[in-house]
């Protein structure tokens, strides 16, 4: 590197980005109620404190239900949109896709407030279900983006070849298309799950009294004594997220390699 200043900047930038995350496990295993240096000793006590917290289990259960449902719904919707947009040309396609992708760039706060206003206006009680609605809106663009790239790398003549060999459009989809886009589907499921799992604004606005992991953690920060246990929870969540994203990326790359395409960049 010819300019040491740039190198310093790059290192400082990465430190700023990732050092706080590295602190999570540090304090999670630290034998002190105060989040500060110097560290006072090693303990796994905070993990058992966390483990015995019933409210946390409720929140975790809610989050799991939401994330799983959202991942499935968003991926299914994404599957339809991606298939339609890569296979057919129809009037209003650009506009429709633009509207689907819009939540990616809209401030989440605005979307959440608008949804809250509408839900209240039509008299729908706030619950896990309303959080799911919001999260599906949020996750569908990601699913569409991932699945579109999976469908685009499919050679159109593969479908024709299957039909030429006697398969119906339905069995062609089942025998040829689905297996070939399966890595994309798995990747989409995992990424949507991850996004939904740690989403806060929607969950806070649309959740009513139902706690989920993100709002529960936020709430716990009001009690300093609970913070180390939250650090322990955070450590587990970080590990889980990294694992899920790594699996998602693995399947995405494997999908590209299988269909013989070249990698055009992904999330990792």
């Amino acid at each position, binding site marked *: 590197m010819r300019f040491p200043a740039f190198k310093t900047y790059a290192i400082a930038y990465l430190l700023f980005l990732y050092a706080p995350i590295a602190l999570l496990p540090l304090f999670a295993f630290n034998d002190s109620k105060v989040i500060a240096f110097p560290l006072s000793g090693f303990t796994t006590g905070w993990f058992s404190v966390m483990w015995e917290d019933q409210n946390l289990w409720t929140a975790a259960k809610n989050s799991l239900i939401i994330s799983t449902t959202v991942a499935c719904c968003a991926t299914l919707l994404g599957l339809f949109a991606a298939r339609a947009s890569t296979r057919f040309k129809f009037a209003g396609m650009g506009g429709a896709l633009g509207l689907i992708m819009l939540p990616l760039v809209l401030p989440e706060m605005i979307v959440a407030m608008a949804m809250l206003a509408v839900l209240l206006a039509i008299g729908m009680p706030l619950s896990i279900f309303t959080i799911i609605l919001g999260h599906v809106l949020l996750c569908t663009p990601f699913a569409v983006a991932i699945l579109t790239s999976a469908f685009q790398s499919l*050679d159109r*003549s*593969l479908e*024709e*070849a*299957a*039909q*030429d*060999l*006697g*398969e*119906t459009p339905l069995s062609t989809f089942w025998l*040829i298309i689905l*297996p*070939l886009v399966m890595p994309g589907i798995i990747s989409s499921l995992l990424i949507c799950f991850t996004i939904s799992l740690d989403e806060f604004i929607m969950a806070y606005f649309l959740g009513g009294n139902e706690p989920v992991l993100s709002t529960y953690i936020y709430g716990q920060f009001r009690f300093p004594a609970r913070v180390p246990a939250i650090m322990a929870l955070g450590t587990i969540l970080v590990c889980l997220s990294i694992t899920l994203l790594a699996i998602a990326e693995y399947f995405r790359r494997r999908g590209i390699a*299988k*269909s*013989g395409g070249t990698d055009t960049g992904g999330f990792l």
Partner: protein
Amino acid sequence: MSAKDTMIEFRDVHKYYGDYHALRGITGTIRPGEFFSLLGPSGCGKTTLLRTIAGFEDISSGAVLIDGRDMAAVPANKRPTNMVFQSYAIFPHLSVAQNVGFGLRKDPRSSAEKEKAVAEALEMVGLKGYGGRAAHALSGGQRQRVALARALILKPKVLLLDEPLSALDKKMREQMQVELIRLQRQVGITFILVTHDQEEALVMSDRIAVMFEGEIAQLAEPETLYRRPNSRKVADFIGTMNFLKAKVLEETDTAVEIDAQGFGRIHIERSQVMGGATAEGPTVGFRPETMTILYEGSPATDRESMATIEEVVYFGDMTYYDVRIDGTDHPVRISMRNVFGRPVLDIGTKARIGWSPGALVLFR
């Protein structure tokens, strides 16, 4: 033509893509067991026509009949045709054997019999023992063989080949041409090949349909296409043809008397008179190898003209001469086989050119 002599029949087939008229009234028949080629430049509609046989393309009007049956209401998966795609369309997630056996899924035979059929099909295309390999790890030539085996295992009435050799290198392409001809003789199935390579079409086909802009310009055997192209456009597309301006002097029922630039007065039989002249007016056309440069002691030819050699292109076994025949305004190309002891002539040499009226074609 009776139904027995016809495998495929096109009846005034039209195809529109919006305003674009892709097929403009295709009429013609393809015989059972023949190696038929659809030849033309890109965008001429040859692939579209092939796809109407396979059922991947609906036609706007007219009819396509396979073995006497109108295919209008028959979807692609129910037609007695199979296709080898330009990209080969090998299923990348399946093994070679699973690819080849893909079409046998609904076959009532036992799985042992099906395995035997797959092995036989692989052996037929020279891939014996490749069944267990992953499809995405195959080379281009191997993919093509798998595609062939996968299509032929179903014993279709017609095998459709969409530019199957275009992705291969020259050596491999020539080898596959020979193998395809051998395979076609072996299985006796009607092969329909789409190609833009005139040489490939001439080498492989029993008959060729030359297509331009959605129409069949000429449908004939390779030799007829080459020796008696029915228009200047076909003549230009297939091989090299020289053209010289001509004037029609006299016409009878059996022949035409013309005065051709550089050649003088010529008697041309009716069978050598074609339509398809361009705005230039009537022209005579001839192939480079129908003219010879006469050396001392060469056998006499019907007619002779004097010419000057303007360019020499040496090809080892052949030499191409661009010569200007006295009294003409542009050079014509003559090809001569190089024979031991006969010198290659230099630029600027005056030479006698021997020719015969029977080798000429008149476009008017």
